[in-house]
């Protein structure tokens, strides 16, 4: 049995990588992937905690999060498609209309 602490470390690592990617990358799809990483980091943490405490609530949360992540991807990709139709690009640097 792996010590849950290590799982937490892995989860934190994944979260950091995801966050870092979301901050730095220009490509919207990569940013979406990074967000998925962040979500999975959270799932991992839920599962680890569920195992450690012997409580099923964590599992339930993880399954919810996976479901939400799936729908999120669907919406996100749809948005990127629309974005591409508008800008001929999915680079986040081109999407700065909020500034104005």
């Amino acid at each position, binding site marked *: 049995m792996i010590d849950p602490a290590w799982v937490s470390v892995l989860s934190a690592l994944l979260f950091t990588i995801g966050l870092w990617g979301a*901050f730095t990358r220009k490509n919207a799809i990569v940013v979406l992937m990074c967000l998925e990483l962040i979500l999975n980091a959270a799932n991992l943490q839920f599962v680890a905690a569920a195992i450690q405490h012997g409580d099923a609530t964590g599992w339930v949360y993880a399954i919810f999060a996976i479901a939400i992540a799936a729908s999120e991807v669907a919406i996100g990709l749809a948005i990127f498609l629309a974005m591409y139709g508008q800008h001929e690009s999915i680079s986040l640097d081109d999407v700065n209309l909020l500034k104005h």
Partner: protein
Amino acid sequence: MGTTTDIPEITSSFTEYAIFIVLLPMLAFPVILFLGRLFNGNETWVKSAKEGGLIALPIMVASFILSLILIVEFIGSGTGSYYIGDWLSFGWIGADGMTIEEKVFGVGIYIDHVTVMLLFVASFLCMLINIFSIGYMNTDPVNDNRNHRFYAEFVLFCSGMLGMVLADSFLWLFIFWELMGLCSYLLIGFYYERPSAAYAAKKAFLTTRVGDVFLVIGLVMLWNMFGSLDYSVVFNPDNIAAVDAGELQMALGMMFIGAVGKSAQFPLHVWLPDAMEGPTPVSALIHAATMVNAGLYLVARMFPFFGAPAMAGELVDLAFIIAAIGGITAVMAAAIAFVQDDLKKVLAYSTMSQLAYIFTGLGAALWLANTPGMEKYAIVAFGAALFHLFNHAMAKGMLFMASGSVIHEMHHAHHDVHHHDDHGDDHHDDDDDEFDAQSMSNMGGLASKMPITATAMLVGSASIMGLPLIGGFWSKEGIIANAWRVALEDPRFFLPAFCVLLGAAMTGFYMSRMWLKTFAGKPKTEVAEHVHEQTPWIPIPLVTLTFVTLSSVILAGMMFTHWSSDSGYAFFSDKGLIDGLLYEFEHVFLNHDAFYFVLTYVAIFIGAIVGPGVAMALYGGALKEGEKAKGWMQPIINLSARVNKKRGFDNSAWAESGLSVALKERLYFDKWYDTAMLKLVAGFAVLCATFDRKVIDGTIKTIERSSQKISLSVRKLTTGSARDYIMMAALGVLVIYAMLEVMI
């Protein structure tokens, strides 16, 4: 705080309706205004209803009849009050500064001899002036289709005066006082398209406002001392004994300044002559029936304070100030009246002068009331002052209406003479500005052409001058005698006493001058030759008032001047008419005291012989060949012609003199006030503007500028880039986490 006096409560049936004396005209105000708006220009409305005049008339008649019933009842039962109900109640910090006391402002009426006098004067004259207005206003083409406004404001004005007189507390007095102030503004500015009228209205309003500020201060001080403004509380001798005399004198002095403003006394007199810009019925209303009497009424109301034993000798300074202001104004106004050419302006200054007599009389009465041992004279002096108020109101109301009649007919005659202009009948005033229908230089010789008006003017002038046996003679004698009576005791009073004596001669001169210039001599213009008495309605009040003024001798015989005797509040003396007359004759003409005996004849001599004599020498003259005035006026005109011929002298040197010019300029008061006000107001305005620009604008601009700066720098955060927002969100979460850590 205080106990109330035992003023008997009157509970007869009529007293309960007394409130309608005030309410009827007040309710007529919106009715006339509304109907006038509805039927403006309608044939029936103009011809049959006289644009509201015939709605106002029954209202005023009803008010007058109710007043008469109330007066008759008063004579039967004496001083009383009738409490109608609570109006306003509120908490007030009690005497100990800790508890909250409940204070109640009530509504009620209060009746004593002063009320009764003013009530009769106001309701009677309002009714007569209403009749006069129907003749005057409704044939005046200048103001077609807006007379309903005149009548509406007129009835409101009357209700203000009647309400003020009947009020049972100084608070209600003040409310109605201000109602009159408003109405005077509206009515003086009735011809608002004329800039001079608009200016006069503003001036009247603002000048009286200066006095009103002091009145409010006085009332607040009074409230502070007594904890109430009800007459029943403040007139209670026990309550008066409990207050500080110096403070009371201060409060009453402040209230007196309010009266000075309202009654147009020096130095707040400047508005009255300009108030002539209103229609003539308004002048009559302001000068005789309502407005200016309000100030006198207020001072007369103070009598119980001076009569209270606890205040004996404490308030004589204020009494002196009242008399002195009166004395100064009496002479000053009379002097200015010497040189006025405008018929109405002469009357305006005459009003100021006569009101000043009443103030002097009241001052003397208050001094006597306040001095131990002299109280019995106070009643007589007080009665004389009030009787002069009565006589002056009747005579001045008549004089103004007569002058209105003259001016009106002059207008018509001018219109007839200059019929050739094709401008049409309406608004004929616009194109004859060069002709002044009010200037006495355009009149002359009207005695044969306007017999009723000339007679009314003659009787009114005689009453104002104090020709023996006519109207004002009785009261003026009383005022002069009592002023001198006080002067013998208190040397300061020599000033007002001498002023009123001198004023008698001056009155004799300027009133005679006015009558002679208008009615005697040959017509000075073509217009004056074509004048006729032709307007309906106008003669009714003139004739009525002529008889009232002439019958004033009966009132004198009924010891009218003794009516304020507080022994059971007798209205008239219990002597019979003949006995009273005999007593009065003996008292006035054959006084056993050598001093008053001489004084009376000196006053009669200078007032009835010297003054008119000089006027005859200067302005007298026979009528045109073949014309003859009525039998009672012809001898006077003949006499004036003879005096003029024999003693006529050239007065052009006087007319050119500096004094004459100064008098024409009204002693420069208006100029001084304008300059001082300009300096004061302009200086203050500059100060305010600087404060506004520097402090208020500065603060706001600083706030605005700094917020702009902050927002500019904050705006930079909004990059529009999604990654920056993610970063911010992450940082925000971190911050929240850190805060939770710290707090937990």
